[in-house]
């Protein structure tokens, strides 16, 4: 870990972010006028850019919006959409909404866990896949539903899990 000085700022933070990354976060905050009320939108944009929100990124955001790091951390950990752990190259989300649940989503989840040998919230060692659960993508007609990245798979059965994974191997 290196200690860097933020450009144009006197604050010193322990960070391992490149100047370029800090500049990008500054830009995002700037685009929302550094308004603390826009924190959630800032976090969304930042997560789109980086894929996740590590502590260092949160520190830079807190500084820009002139709020405490604890406040930012509190918000990041409150909402399930934000993650402090990088997801896999192909993030797998299994819908555990009620419609999918009654059509056997639990068994699908178990099958993915077994095939990839990881738990919910974890990423495989090769960083290829991660498993998470979500509540309803609104495609209940296709239940049970699994999303890999942006692609939605409907009417998934435990037997089709391997075929889905093979598409990405």
């Amino acid at each position: 870990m290196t200690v860097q000085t933020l450009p144009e700022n006197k604050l010193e933070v322990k960070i391992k972010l490149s100047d370029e990354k800090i500049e990008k976060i500054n830009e995002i905050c700037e685009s929302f006028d550094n308004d603390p009320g826009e924190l959630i939108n800032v976090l969304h944009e930042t997560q789109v850019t980086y894929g996740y929100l590590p502590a260092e990124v949160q520190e830079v955001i807190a500084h820009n919006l002139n709020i405490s790091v604890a406040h930012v951390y509190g918000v990041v950990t409150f909402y399930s959409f934000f993650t402090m752990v990088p997801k896999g190259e192909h993030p797998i989300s299994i819908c555990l909404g009620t419609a999918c649940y009654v059509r056997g989503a639990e068994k699908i989840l178990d099958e993915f866990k077994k095939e990839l040998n990881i738990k919910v919230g974890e990423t495989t060692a090769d960083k290829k896949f991660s498993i998470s659960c979500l509540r309803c993508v609104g495609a209940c007609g296709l239940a049970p539903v699994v999303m890999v990245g942006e692609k939605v798979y409907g009417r998934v059965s435990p037997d089709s899990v391997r075929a889905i994974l093979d598409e990405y191997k």
Partner: protein
Amino acid sequence: MAKFKSHILICGGTGCQSSNSEAILNNLERELATKGLIEDVQVIRTGCFGFCEKGPIVNVLPDNTFYVEVKPDDAQEIIDEHIIKGRRVNRLLYVNPENEEHVPDSKHMGFYKKQLRIALRNCGLVDPENIEESIAHDAYQALGKVLTEMSQTDAIEIIKKSGLRGRGGGGFPTGLKWEITKNSVSDKKYVVCNADEGDPGAFMDRSILEGDPHSILEAMAICGYCIGADEGLIYIRAEYPLAIKRLKVAIKQAEEYGLLGSDIMGTGFNFKIKLRYGAGAFVCGEETALIHSMEGKRGEPTNKPPFPSVSGYLQKPTNVNNVETFANVPAIILKGAEWFSSIGTEKSKGTKVFALAGKINNVGLIEVPMGITLREIIFEIGGGIKGGKKFKAVQTGGPSGGCLTEKHLDTPIDYDNLLQAGSMMGSGGMIVMDEDDCMVSVAKFYLDFIVEESCGKCAPCRIGNKRLNEILSKICDGNGTQEDLERLKNLSNVIKDTSLCGLGQTSPNPVLSTLANFQEEYYEHVHDKKCRAGHCKNLLYYVIDPEACIGCMLCVRNCPVNAITGERKQSHFIHQEICIKCGACMEKCKFDAISLTSEYAMAEH
């Protein structure tokens, strides 16, 4: 504007897009181009038709032919046969399951017959990304009427008279809410649209936003005029990328046409709308939590009063309404309060959109008049239970609601009747369950959800629900006692009475309603160690069929805990008190002699 001979409408909702409706659209357009028909036939990507079970759906106008389960390769046949030769493609029509006849149009389909579409009036009809189409279907006409012909009080009076109640779940009279916010004195007020549809299994708000975003923008502007606000915010889930995209397009187009922004329609009324994103927290559907989330804070609720209509977003008076509530407003303004209040029951006027899902033949989005019975919804519109199984329960109102049973099938559905039956309207999720669903597990499923989503601010919800969940786990694992059943009931009532917000106050509902309606199932779990649905793994027993077992010893050797005994060439026996239910024996058996049963007594002998 070009005049087209026919229009091909294709569903562009999330469900149908997931089943490749985009490729169908591209193929249709390519076919039209090769046949030189681009000038005559227009392909339109619309919002959701509602019949998600049979998607992707393609509707050809003017003859209103309704094609179901269309594949991208079917595009050529639709153009060649239907458009060019004027012959319907029979194999793509919906087949009535009762008499196996092809049904050419939606009007004659069981799924649509009993529906009345007010909130969903333009879904599946207009291209949501083209404002002119919406305007051709009366969008912004109600806004014009309100701005030019009505005072604030007049317009509020219409909404009050119509009897419209909040469609997000609570059922608070919408007109009254507007009036209270109007009467709050402040230099700045806000209109908020609650599009944080967190109830798993409900997708009506998303479908409305994806299919008819202008109706929401228009209604928010009407509300702004009535309460004296010039700014609106839509709080929408980040999980709905398509709805967000279409809202952004719609806001931009409405601004370009002078229907949002400054001096709308030259009347001097200003109204702008911005988007705020949720980030996955169920509790943010609660008004005060939603407002905190919009302010960039943790979405924790606060005590009411003060109500948002007095002190809400940035401490200014704020009117929060749900998407579906707003979608009704323009129709009420245009057609009048009497028209709206003539639909529905005495205390619940108009229609309600339900998301029908679970073990039902026709999964989809339906809009029906209040007062319709569950039987009509499930067996006529929904086409009955999947696979001819027996109906067991229907869960309404999401995690805050309850399970209704056979005895409630003929109750007319409205806010008050559902409450009385121990459930609630909620946002309108309706999950149908059959005999294979274990009601104790269903209660536990909802508690899992609540434990995960409780914000943690108040102890009854944070700790109480966790304890409820533990007791339910214990019962599902076969370790429950009679005292546990008492404890479930007492604790549920304490949580209901003492929680801070709506989430906690309603969270024990799934437990209480299953306890009341499926008492015998709880008893069986506790006393007979039996799960009649065969769902609870610990209450299932592996047994060997002595007829089928040839005595090969394979299972005996593979059992990790030596629970199986027997001699070679004699049928084997599983000792239930030792068995850990790993299933290794069943996997290894080559003669299908091992099966699962929910009857402990049977397994013992």
